[in-house]
């Protein structure tokens, strides 16, 4: 067990072009490699959902989406704020 910094890099992804209940297309379904090593699935938000904006190995940082009183979902944005 260790604390994660919330920093990482974009490892790989697709951009779903079909909306799902609760998810409006286009949206990225991404895997981020954390600074500490592990990888996790997530969405990259706060930037255009295009292959131009979503560059592999770009620096990303965590942001939490409050889904309910008990659940906060870790999402990621480009490091240093939205592009």
């Amino acid at each position, binding site marked *: 067990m260790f604390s994660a910094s919330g920093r990482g890099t974009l490892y790989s992804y*697709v951009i779903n*072009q079909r909306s799902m209940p*609760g998810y409006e297309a286009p949206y990225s379904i991404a*895997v981020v490699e954390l600074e500490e090593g592990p*990888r996790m699935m*997530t969405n990259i938000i706060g930037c255009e959902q295009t*292959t131009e904006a979503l560059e592999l190995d770009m620096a990303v940082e965590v942001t939490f989406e409050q*889904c309910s009183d008990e659940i906060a979902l870790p999402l990621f944005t480009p490091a240093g704020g939205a592009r």
Partner: protein
Amino acid sequence: MKPGTVAVVGAAETTDMGTITNLSVIGLHADAAINAMADAGLGPGDIDGIATAGVSPTEVAMYLGITPTYVDGTSVGGCSFMLHVRHAAAAINEGLASTILITHGESGRSRVGAGRFGGSSASLGGQFEAPYGPAGPPTMFTIPWLRYAKTYGASERDLANVAVVQREWAGQNPRAKFRDPISVEDVLDATMIATPFTKLMCCLVTDGGGALILTSAERAGEFAAKPVFILGTGESVETPVVSQMADFTSSKAFRVSGAKAFAEAGIAREDVDHLMIYDAFAHLPIYGLEDLEFVGKGEAPGFIADGNTAIGGSLPLNTNGGGLSYMHSGMYGMYALQESVRQLRGTAAAQVDDVEVSVSHGVGGMFGASGTIIFSNAKPS
């Protein structure tokens, strides 16, 4: 197993293929099983082993009137049938049963008597992937590709090439769902599903089934059809969730399964005349060619672009048209096995000349599992 000790003596697909609205899932299993038994000249009373995935082997045995002394319900996704073949070969050699029936049936398109797709919310996928909005395999199986593309300088055109070449094979197969020729541009311009994967880089969703009957090689001469011997087998699993695949440019389950099968068979890659690689999506033959060591890392796109896997090429690949153009019910592995058997019997629609060794390589889940079977129509001495 010792190479060549077990043979496929019955093999058949469902009578119809594609859209089958008058058969439920169990009906598709039964139709394929009845066809395979007819192919072998056997009845349910001659079968003493049963294996299947998707439905319970209990259900198939009861439905067909089989009393088995060997039962295998291994269910690791679309390659489950490769694992069934492997387990059945070991079981026959061990005397657990003498004549084993492996069945598949899936109402992938019409959903007659079919359950829902997806796992429980308590599973790893339910907890750690579902919250991010994946819409089934097209949005998950495809995630590793961009890492491969960046690592080896590959592009969407390389994915498109896979679909184009397989459509050429499908053009020779009257049972294939899609048969009209397509160009790289057609593939690239098709509806975008999960960038960079367009619709023509994704498999079909159709209905169908298939069944195989295995017995000891010593008995193979008793059957009408040309026997197909099992030379080598492999299987492995890696992860139930694609995000935890160790290397996004290569499947560990592919590598382990493939290496095991080739070691067992004691043959070289150059000895392979025909190859089936489960192609749920267009990147899978690329990973498969490399992870089975037919080509080096990063070389598969060029190998395909140079025509090696196409009609007249050195390594004919997915000659039924594959999941991209022939059919894909959900668990496609059975159809890869069927095409290997047909090629070795000399009865394939797009028959390749002088096939003596064929490899069927399957995937389960999203790079989660793998099974590899090496067949030959010549019994090793």
